[in-house]
């Protein structure tokens, strides 16, 4: 298969999107609750991921 190349942020986006979708579907029963939970989970993945990235930034130098 053709090798796939993603940037760090693209990888984070893909990971957050897929896992949030699964969490929302498994964790809630009603459709609207699933959408809300998936959106919240997605936002938290991004927020925490970016925050951790900035926290580690000083150690990259």
């Amino acid at each position, binding site marked *: 298969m053709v*090798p796939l*190349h993603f940037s760090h942020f693209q*990888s984070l986006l893909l*990971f957050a999107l897929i896992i949030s979708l*699964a969490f929302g579907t498994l964790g809630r029963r009603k*459709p609207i609750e*699933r959408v809300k939970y998936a959106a919240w989970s997605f936002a938290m993945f991004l927020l925490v991921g970016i925050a951790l990235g900035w926290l580690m930034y000083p150690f990259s130098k």
Partner: protein
Amino acid sequence: MFEEDHGHPAAAPVPEVSSQDGAQGEAAGGATEAATIAPTQETVDAPSAARAVAVALAGWLLPGLGHALMKMWGRALTIFLTVGFLVYLGAGMRGNVFEPGGEDAFARLGYLADAGTGAFYFAARALEVSGSDVSHADGDYGTRFLATAGVLNLLAALHAYEAARGRKA
């Protein structure tokens, strides 16, 4: 994809407080579980437990199959697609697909996580014809994608087991 699932199969014996759903049902189940389970229910629960184990095993072997057997079509499709997509991405990014008999604890744990994808483990091996390459960030992320796919599928299999037992859905 987000349609309302059927909580339980119509023919399944339903122990305890399975007709309730959500947090309220779980809370009530925790409080009344000891009181509602009579000793005579052991014989009733036995086939249900065996069926739940079979559902969990099916869900592990083929992601989504456990929920499909419970007629939870939305969840079955979502699990199949998310686990499959994670495996595809992980293999495409040339992540490490661990083999059994690893030399250290990390390799053995990695294999356990990868094996969680069930049949998709072999798909990952087949897709990754040029082998893994973790010298770049892509390969490192791919390794995590594959491991996450396995752990997610194990979580889904456990969820299917709980649903089959009538505990939560």
